[in-house]
């Protein structure tokens, strides 16, 4: 079987915009959650989020003019991809076959201009008919909407920008499976490499829903935390008083390569992706299956592909040393995820550290999985586990080792990264220390 390794990583996150800074801040248990200042959210049920700051996408591209005006999600993608590409050294690879260099993103849609849309919809509203006057709507749309901004709304536009920046001309996909998208993208990118359709795949995710309509949508779902009094304490996965997730934004990108290709050009593998599992809950549109059927299947399938028996021990220790949880801080997710981990790992479950970095940077939606996979690789490389912060009041029903509040030293060779999305999307990756 073709082995696939990671040779480059990059991220743009609420905790910072490079690998070292973000990892350091995570290991210091810092929170990036703060009051939203991108729009006036002061009257919203949720007034805070994890917001990317001090970021200028133009610093990450060769020629900004090539990209016209990318939407914010594409800006994040360009920033993260530059870091990953540079770390991989592919820019120095003179004989890279660009038709065998592909891209698979789990990218979200562009940012909706809520100010313009709200004006258009309200001004074209026909009170007597109780509906929009479509003719007036079209007139206002032409007047108020930025045409290119609407084109940039398509979820595959980030793909175009990143592919254009590096000349990638191989297999190209974008998927959008809610919060599971970038984990799924990476898993399928690995599959593309293993099928022999490419030598290199740039993969990951990017997303921002940190705009008035995005916050509105999640507020109406009552999925967001409303702990406005102390935003830094709001994201509290696995706590008894967890009250919903905290919105984040950003991008995580990884360069994936067949081991053969990486070694042939003298690249340094950072880690190896050894398993991918995907499943659908096929249960309800709003709820997870109560027994964790879908998440358990994804974790089990990923471990099976990695030839790992989760219930076995190696010299008395579990075969997996860390699980990066989806860990959203919603009542349902954290409970079901815990149940699924216990189902799969059996007696080993209490001995496998599990943490959620969403406690520190919020939920990056489509980009969450890629950032969390990078966290796993950082754990393997540095021997540290990022903590679950704000875990001061543990839920007695949730009894795993959630690495509470403080980062921990650990010998880590193999990690599991979970992502579960609205709509019953479950995806899990297994990443291992690279061994020749």
């Amino acid at each position, binding site marked *: 079987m073709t082995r696939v390794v990671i040779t480059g990583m990059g991220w743009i996150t609420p905790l910072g915009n490079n690998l070292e800074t973000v990892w350091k801040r995570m290991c210091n248990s810092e929170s990036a959650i703060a009051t939203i200042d991108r729009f*006036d959210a002061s*009257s*919203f049920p949720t007034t805070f989020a994890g917001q990317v700051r001090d970021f200028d996408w133009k610093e990450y591209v060769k020629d900004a003019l090539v990209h016209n005006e990318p939407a914010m999600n594409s800006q994040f993608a360009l920033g993260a991809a530059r870091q990953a590409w540079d770390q991989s050294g592919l820019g120095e690879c003179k004989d890279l076959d660009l038709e065998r260099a*592909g891209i698979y993103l789990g990218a979200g849609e562009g940012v909706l201009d809520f100010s313009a849309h*709200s004006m258009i*919809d*309200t*001004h*074209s*509203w026909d009170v007597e008919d*109780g*509906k*929009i006057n*479509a*003719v007036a709507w*079209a*007139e206002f749309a032409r007047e108020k*909407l930025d*045409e290119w901004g*609407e*084109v940039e709304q*398509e*979820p*595959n*536009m980030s*793909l*175009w920008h990143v*592919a*254009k920046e590096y000349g990638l*001309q*191989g*297999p*190209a*996909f*974008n998927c*959008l*499976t809610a919060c599971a998208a970038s984990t*799924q993208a990476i898993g399928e990118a690995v*599959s593309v490499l*293993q*099928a022999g*359709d490419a030598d290199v795949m740039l993969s990951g995710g990017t997303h921002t829903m940190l705009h*008035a309509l995005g916050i*509105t*949508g*999640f507020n*109406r*779902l009552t999925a967001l935390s409303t702990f406005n009094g102390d935003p830094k304490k709001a994201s509290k996965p696995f706590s008894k008083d967890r009250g919903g997730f905290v919105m984040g934004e950003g991008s995580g990108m990884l360069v994936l390569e067949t081991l053969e290709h990486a070694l042939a050009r003298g690249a340094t593998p950072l880690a190896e992706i050894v398993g991918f599992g*995907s*499943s*659908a*809950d*096929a249960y*309800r*549109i709003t709820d997870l299956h109560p027994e964790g059927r879908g998440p358990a*299947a994804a974790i089990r399938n990923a471990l099976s592909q990695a030839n790992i028996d989760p219930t076995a021990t190696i010299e008395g220790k579990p075969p997996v040393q860390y699980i990066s949880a989806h860990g959203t801080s919603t009542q349902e997710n954290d409970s079901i995820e815990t149940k699924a981990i216990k189902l799969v790992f059996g007696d080993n479950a209490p001995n496998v550290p599990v943490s959620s970095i969403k406690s520190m940077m919020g939920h990056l939606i489509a980009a969450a999985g890629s950032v969390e996979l990078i966290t796993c690789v950082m754990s393997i490389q540095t021997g540290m586990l990022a903590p679950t912060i704000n875990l001061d009041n543990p839920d007695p029903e949730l009894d795993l080792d959630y690495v509470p509040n403080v980062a921990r030293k650990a010998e880590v060779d193999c990690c599991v990264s979970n992502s579960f*999305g*609205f*709509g*019953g999307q479950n995806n899990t990756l297994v990443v291992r220390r690279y061994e020749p």
Partner: protein
Amino acid sequence: MPERQEQIVISGVGVITCFGVGIELLWDAMIEGRTGLKRIERFDPSGFSSQIAGELPEDDFKVRKIVPKSHRKATKVMCRDTELAVGAAADAVKSAGLTTAATSDEPPTIAPDRVGCHIGAGLISAEVNELGAALVTSKKEDGTFDLAHWGAEGMQNLTPLWLLKYLPNMLACHVTIVHNSQGPSNTITCCEASSGLSIAESRRVIRRGDADACLSGGAEDRVNPLALYRQHCTGRLVDSDGSGDMSALITPFANDASGTAIGEGGGILIVEANSSCTKRGGSPWCTIDGVGCRQSFTNSPLDADPGALASATNKALVEANCDASEIDVIVPLGSGIKQLDDAEREGLTVVFGDRLPTIPTITTIPYTGNCMAGNGAIALSVAAKSIKEQQIPARLGATETDGIDAGRYESTQMRINKVLVISPSEGGQCVAIVLGKVQA
């Protein structure tokens, strides 16, 4: 993830277009040369320069009637795109002769965890009436929008599950619930290439052993003001108020092609391992012999790259172990968008050379409009039907086309062993798929 190199087949075809649910309705129209394009009726399109669409009258398709009783309540949170996907999936399952949770209480033909789902979806545009009704409650007396009121009170006028209607993966979500398919599920969002890339992914998932069959394809609805406006922004739409001869309006590959029309629809195909299909006594429509995917390298995401299209096609041919001379029919996107048509013709010329003008093409967009994420599934369904019937349907459009056989033509019977289906997309993704006749 070891790959099984076994044959993958299409064992069922489900289609939903402006002609209704089912391949037969579309096929009959295409045999007769009868377009479904007409002036938009769902809303007054007078404010747009392109006022036509391939629109399925809402009375002709009620999703509530085709879902199990247990899922009827959930239809309230389906957007039109999801309704279309659910309709096409039901048709596909029936076509393949599968028993699923939706069809009966009998045990399913294929174990639920061995059935995947890959459905291409678009940027689902919010229904402006639904959103507008909520937004208008926060309109100030001076006519401006009051964001503070919206945050505090106005948003309460949106139904709590509003967001869930518009997540692209809700098409697959509803389909997997209705049919209890618990295998790998994904939502490809690559505009016109979405369906083809979904088929490619289903094939890869089956070959790596993660499923035996997949519900695969795509669906999209562009017949609402916001979606129509977004297509206007691309400059790709033909000007028309719906008067005149609609069958001559979209002219793929004509020198004076002036744009495309929107549509709503899509298709779900049952992509299945041949061993699974044989074991259950299924009847494949055709084989999926080769797939190629490439990214365009262009100066605009709205343009297609002939080189990428040629490369994708060559990859598909290599996988199919098939020489270009063996392709009997080509189903291009054929959108009537001049830049895309020119890129397709140039790319195909690279592959087929002087033979290109002698290979008949099938173009669907003049019949159905451009259904974007659903378009490729419609094209693949028609290609599969052509193989099954050994017939190509009539073509609409221009009288003549240069360098490619894509002008107006009557339906004709012919020997068809291999069909190439290709699509560029807004965003630059290109996909090519070679379908083959099932060999006895």
